[in-house]
């Protein structure tokens, strides 16, 4: 061979495509170096068949001297030794010489090529100026080139190249050199394409024959691998890898088909028993040893797989994809195990473990060899699988070979070890120098217990650290648990405990029941061996209540606890305190009575519903609940007064039942997870203390402290006893305890009854629950939600309430007396002393029953009261009653209607409204006047009197009015029933308070009794007659008897109404007429009318008047000055001229004064009256007034008709109105006919 470029390539095969060189060897040698250097310098695009993507490749070539035996023989498929291009070099520039020898040589060369069917050739003609100079005589007619082309390249002119002065440094030389290189590359590629294409076609044909009987996978393997080699040679690693992957897939498919029953003959050789399990070899580019085995068809499945993988690994590393190697390695290992199983290849037990272990380490070391440390650490996730797998395999090898037990391997184990080691063969030379080689490691690990432990721990910790580093904590814990198992088997529970605790914590946190149970069982064993009594018992308790275990196991663990509890009872050993949650669950708690509020000394029972989780009945020596007592009782009584007041913490519902959420799931398995507790919301209302008005309302969450607690730090309470004993539950020693002794808790629900202490008033809170079994105490450290009950003490109380809504005065009314005894014991002779008042006597009958009720409202007894009345005091003897009872009885009382004292002055218009006479009398909302009556009661339990106020309502309202008819006078009294009842009225009478002979009141009323319905009135009328002068002031008393219309006989009660009348006598009569003006017959609208007012004095002036000096002397006549005013309503009538004035009236009786006013009548279009109708469309408010000296009228109001004031004293005239009875309007109700002005229609006008 000619000199070749020696380039150090470490792993690749030192193969390059072969190019042969014929012709002038010396010439070629001179050019070889530059050729070999420059050929790969520029990439060429390689277009490929079958639609594969074109690639840029750098071509290299191995130039060898042409020999005939280099040409491939018929049927030889080898590609590696295939010459892809044949070159012929010549520098002949002499035609003669060419013809003489060179052509001959070329022809021979060509025919050889043709004989072998090779068409890839190139003739290179090197021209040099040096040579040409020597042959100057040569005419450049036809060049040698043309000749050669003529002779050889009949069609392919491109197969002939001229290379000009390649050794010179001229641009022309450079150009031709480049052209030559391009040509060379193109032709090489063409050859590749053609030859590889042909090869691939052949290969495919071969593959298609795979169903034929004689087909052998190994042969095919060799063929396709050849292709792979070529690609690798061309640096096309990707393509090379594809070839191997195809082979891999093909083989896998065959194995699967075999598994499916479709076996191929050739597979038989792979089914041979495995004799060697020395693992993968990845340190050589090609494991020729295995390759030869495959070639010979003697490879086992593991050999084939190993070889395939080693090739894939090599290529992947070329491709800089080391992490794919690890991933594929894991797949491969799993796959191989599966395939051997599928093919039912007989393998020595443990042999595969060896193979896997060795292979894992080999891959890892191979990767470590080509990556730096930082890269490795960053890619732990890719390698950790192999580490873990190796660990697992080593562990199983360890247990197989008896290296894990405490006693060390026995002879059988040793035999097995020897067999396994035998299958490893001898160490391969390439690793012999490495101290850490997988081979050495395995041998060492299997050699003794100690070395095994060392290697196993090393691997385990490495894998765990990696898992932790990449955050796969669960995987790390699983490994840790398996390490713990190892330690346990080694008899080293100390070291196992930590791993078990760690795993258990994880499983409990995430709520995986089965792993929890399993791990806990392991932990129990561990703790037992360690002698951690308390922890062991706690774990046992959890296991005994674990539904995932069988009954036997649960009973066993339960028995462990019981044994311990009963065990050393004689020695006063310290008690062991365990969490109750594993032992039993508090489900429900019930108070009896339900309100959980009792008075001092009363019986209060608490019923606990405990669900025992133990599989067997457990005899408890004592079950106790510690109680915290506090004196705080701010408003406690009021707060809890009604059942279900709700403000008590969590004690909702009237049943007095507290349900604990812990047991809600009802399953014995641990709750899936410490789920956040439910929101506990309560309504709050803030009322101002003074008027009870609502200030604000809202919702408050009562268990914020639980909801907002940090999750990760909450361990001990929510997840009790994952390890037991980590947070020892403290037992509070409370002074007060609820206790029961010797309770047997059956599996499942139990109910335990306690009697709660109620000795002192205050609030009692249940804090802890403690069950004692021998030396073991199960403690529930907190009872939540808070359970409280209250004990109160109460002062005796007396209350008096009316039976009906309103008490009516004047009638006997029933009143209920209630005595709440509180802490007072009603003794014999205890009596209520009621001070009598005249206004309200107590009506008592001889048999007045009293009922005695217990604090819960049950009727306890009934007895008859004895009531004694004396002048001042009514004494009611109470029946005997124990404390915290109530006595109820009813009494009848009567409130007299107070007679109204005479009013200081009469009101001109009576409306019956009574002025408040006493402070105790006022009007109630119902319109009834009411009276407050106070009773003072002396109670036996107190030195102070109790004042009770009762409010009575007066059923009637009366009003009076004075009516006149000329000089005759009438008194009308209206009695209105303002109560809700109906009454009979009888015997109405009106009398004068100071009867004089001159006055007579003549009744105009019927004699029969009258029925007054609720809210209705009765009117009574009397005429006043007098003989002499009527009194200036008249004081009258109206009285009537009434009784309720209840049917049956009734007693009548009087009702009195007093009033006073003044200015009874009529002084003046006023008459008003409207007359048409002179000439007109009728009044017309719009026309003036005359108003004639006639004031007549009806009575002589009284002496008093005379003396008043209001008289004026004029014209010798004694006159009184009156003021009048005409008030129109300014709609129909209007006064023309003065509407008021003064007139002087003679003092003599029957003196008359006439005045004339003109009243124009407006016919406003709006009130155009209907024709022919006589309508009172016009009203005139005609006010005629008389006045004395200076009399003034106010307008507009009919009521204030007359006003007169006596002028007393000269300086200022004084107006004084007349009393209602003093002026009689005789024109009241008079109508005036008014005709419309245009059409003489009649209009009627009312004069009122």
């Amino acid at each position, binding site marked *: 061979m000619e000199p070749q470029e020696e380039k150090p390539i470490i792993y690749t095969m030192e193969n390059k495509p072969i190019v042969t060189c014929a012709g002038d060897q010396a010439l070629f040698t001179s050019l070889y170096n530059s050729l070999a250097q420059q050929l790969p310098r520029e990439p060429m695009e390689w277009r490929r068949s079958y639609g594969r993507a074109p690639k840029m490749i750098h071509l290299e070539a191995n130039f060898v001297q042409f020999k005939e035996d280099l040409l491939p023989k018929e049927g030889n498929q080898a590609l590696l030794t295939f010459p892809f291009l044949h070159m012929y070099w010549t520098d002949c520039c002499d035609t003669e010489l060419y013809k003489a020898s060179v052509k001959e040589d070329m022809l021979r060369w060509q025919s050889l090529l043709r004989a072998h069917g090779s068409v890839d050739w190139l003739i290179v003609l090197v021209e040099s100026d040096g040579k040409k100079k020597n042959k100057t005589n040569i005419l450049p007619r036809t060049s040698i080139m043309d000749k050669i082309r003529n002779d050889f390249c009949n069609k392919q002119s491109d197969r002939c190249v001229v290379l000009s002065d390649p050794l010179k440094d001229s641009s022309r030389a450079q150009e031709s050199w480049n052209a030559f290189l391009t040509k060379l590359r193109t032709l090489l590629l063409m050859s590749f394409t053609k030859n590889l294409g042909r090869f691939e076609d052949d290969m495919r044909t071969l593959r298609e024959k795979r169903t034929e009987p004689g087909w052998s996978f190994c042969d095919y393997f060799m063929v396709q691998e050849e292709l792979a080699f070529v690609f690798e040679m061309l640096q096309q690693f990707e393509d090379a890898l594809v070839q191997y992957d195809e082979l891999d897939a093909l083989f896998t498919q065959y194995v*699967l088909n075999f*598994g499916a029953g479709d076996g191929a003959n050739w597979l038989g050789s792979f089914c041979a028993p495995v004799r060697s399990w020395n693992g993968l070899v990845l340190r050589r580019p090609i494991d020729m040893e295995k390759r030869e085995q495959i070639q010979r068809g003697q490879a086992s499945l593991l050999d084939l797989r190993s070889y395939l993988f080693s090739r894939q690994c090599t290529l992947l590393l070329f491709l800089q994809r080391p992490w794919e190697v690890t991933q594929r390695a*894991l*797949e491969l*290992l*799993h796959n191989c*195990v*599966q395939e051997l*199983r*599928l093919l039912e290849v007989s393998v020595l037990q443990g042999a595969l473990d060896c193979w896997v272990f060795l292979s894992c380490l080999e891959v890892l070391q191979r990767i470590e060899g080509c990556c730096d440390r930082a890269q490795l650490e960053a890619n732990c*996730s890719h390698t950790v*699988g192999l580490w873990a*797998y190796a660990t697992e395999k080593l562990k199983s090898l360890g247990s197989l070979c008896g290296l894990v037990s405490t006693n060390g391997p026995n002879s059988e184990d040793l035999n097995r070890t020897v067999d396994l080691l035998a299958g490893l063969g001898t160490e391969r030379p390439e690793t012999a120098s490495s101290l850490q080689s997988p081979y050495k490691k395995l041998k060492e690990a299997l050699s003794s217990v100690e070395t095994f432990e060392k290697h196993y721990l090393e691997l385990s910790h490495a894998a765990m650290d990696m*898992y932790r580093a*990449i*955050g*796969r*904590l*669960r*995987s790390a814990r*699983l490994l840790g648990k398996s390490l713990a198992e190892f330690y346990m088997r080694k008899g080293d529970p100390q070291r196992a405990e930590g791993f078990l605790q760690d795993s258990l914590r994880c*499983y409990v946190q*995430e*709520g*995986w*029941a*089965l*792993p929890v149970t*399993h791990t806990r069982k392991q932990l129990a064993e561990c703790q037992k061996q360690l002698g951690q009594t308390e922890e062991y018992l706690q774990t046992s308790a959890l296991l005994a209540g674990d539904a995932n275990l069988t009954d036997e196991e649960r009973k066993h663990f339960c028995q462990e606890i019981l044994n311990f509890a009963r065990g050393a009872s004689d020695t006063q050993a310290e008690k062991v305190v365990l969490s109750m949650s594993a032992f039993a669950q508090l489900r429900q708690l019930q108070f009896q009575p339900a309100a959980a509020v009792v008075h001092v000394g009363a019986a209060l029972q608490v019923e606990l519903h405990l669900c025992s989780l133990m599989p067997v009945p457990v005899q408890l020596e004592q079950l106790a609940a510690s109680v915290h007592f506090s004196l705080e009782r701010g408003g406690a009584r009021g707060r809890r007064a009604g059942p279900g007041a709700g403000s008590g913490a969590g004690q909702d519902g009237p049943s007095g039942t507290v349900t604990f959420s812990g047991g809600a799931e009802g399953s014995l398995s641990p709750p*899936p*997870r410490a*789920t956040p507790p439910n929101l506990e919301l309560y309504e709050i209302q803030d009322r101002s203390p003074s008027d009870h008005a609502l200030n604000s309302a809202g919702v408050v969450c009562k268990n914020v402290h639980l909801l907002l607690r940090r999750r990760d730090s909450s361990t001990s309470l929510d997840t009790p006893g994952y390890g037991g004993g980590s947070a020892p539950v403290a037992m509070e020693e409370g002074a007060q305890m609820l206790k029961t002794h010797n309770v047997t808790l059956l599996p499942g629900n139990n109910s335990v009854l306690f009697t709660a202490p109620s000795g002192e008033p205050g609030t009692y809170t249940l804090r802890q629950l403690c069950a004692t079994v021998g030396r073991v105490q199960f403690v529930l450290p907190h009872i939540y939600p808070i359970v409280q009950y209250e004990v109160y003490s109460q002062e005796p109380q007396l209350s008096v309430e009316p039976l009906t809504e309103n008490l009516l005065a004047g009638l006997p009314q029933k009143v209920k007396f209630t005595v709440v005894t509180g802490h007072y014991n009603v003794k014999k002779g205890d009596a209520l002393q009621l001070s009598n008042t005249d206004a309200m006597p107590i009506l008592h009958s001889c048999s007045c029953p009293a009922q005695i009720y217990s604090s819960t409202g049950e009727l306890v007894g009934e007895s008859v009261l004895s009531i004694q009345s004396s002048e001042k005091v009514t004494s009611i003897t109470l029946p005997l009653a124990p404390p915290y009872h109530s006595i109820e009885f009813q009494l009848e009382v009567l409130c007299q209607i107070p007679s109204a004292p005479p009013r200081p002055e009469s009101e001109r218009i009576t409306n019956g409204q009574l002025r408040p006479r006493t402070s105790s009398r006022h009007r109630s909302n119902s319109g009834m006047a009411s009276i407050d009556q106070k009773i003072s009661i002396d109670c036996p339990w107190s030195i102070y009197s109790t004042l009770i106020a009762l409010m009575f309502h007066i059923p009637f309202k009366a009003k009076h009015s004075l009516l006149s008819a000329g000089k005759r006078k009438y008194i009308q009294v209206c009695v209105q029933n303002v109560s809700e009842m109906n009454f009979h009225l009888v015997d109405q009478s009106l009398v004068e308070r100071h009867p004089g002979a001159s006055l007579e009141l003549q009744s105009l009323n019927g004699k029969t009794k009258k029925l007054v319905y609720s809210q209705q009135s009765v009117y009574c009328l009397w005429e006043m007659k007098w003989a002499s002068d009527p009194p200036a002031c008249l004081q009258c008393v109206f009285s009537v008897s009434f009784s309720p219309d209840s049917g049956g006989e009734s007693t009548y009660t009087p009702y009195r109404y007093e009033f006073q009348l003044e200015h009874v006598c009529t002084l003046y009569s006023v008459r008003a007429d409207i007359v048409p003006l002179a000439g007109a017959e009728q009044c017309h609208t719009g026309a003036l009318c005359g108003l004639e007012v006639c004031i007549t004095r009806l009575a002589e002036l009284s002496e008093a008047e005379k003396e008043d000096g209001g008289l004026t002397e004029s014209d010798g006549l004694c006159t009184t000055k009156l003021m009048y005013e005409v008030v129109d309503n300014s709609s129909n009538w209007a006064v023309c001229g003065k509407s008021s004035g003064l007139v002087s009236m003679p003092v003599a009786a029957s003196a008359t004064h006439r005045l004339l006013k003109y009243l124009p009548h407006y016919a406003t279009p709006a009130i155009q009256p209907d024709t022919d109708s006589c309508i009172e469309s016009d009203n005139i408010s005609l006010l005629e007034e008389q006045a004395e000296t200076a009399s003034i009228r106010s307008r507009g109001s009919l009521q204030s008709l007359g006003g007169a004031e006596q002028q007393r004293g000269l300086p200022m005239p004084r107006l004084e109105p007349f009393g209602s009875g003093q002026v009689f309007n005789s024109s009241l109700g008079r109508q005036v006919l008014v005709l419309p002005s245009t059409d003489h229609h009649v209009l009627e006008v009312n004069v009122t």
Partner: protein
Amino acid sequence: MAVCIAVIAKENYPLYIRSVPTENELKFHYTVHTSLDVVEEKISAVGKALVDQRELYLGLLYPTEDYKVYGYVTNSKVKFVIVVDSSNTSLRDNEIRSMFRKLHNSFTDVMCNPFYNPGDPIQSKAFDSMVSAMMVQAC
């Protein structure tokens, strides 16, 4: 088909887990629990890349010698894990996907049940029978 099917709550506790054959139940519990590591890894990796249109199917979580563990996570972070026997090579990725889809549909039905309290273990008979259909009867 599957040898173990598990539905795991967002908080990583099992809502449903069933396996055949039952004697290996514990082992499957461990396997499924451990697979959560990879699920979380994949979720966080996906979360970084594509938050919106992420693939619910997580693919092969990890192979063991005997089993292949596949994962799927719903948008509400409920995880489905299917364990398949390694020897069962006829199962393609597409079939696993369709199993997950069926599982998801059935799970949605469970969640739609007004009487089902989200977070409780799944006890639906319909779900159970659907799962049964996906599992091999003991080989």
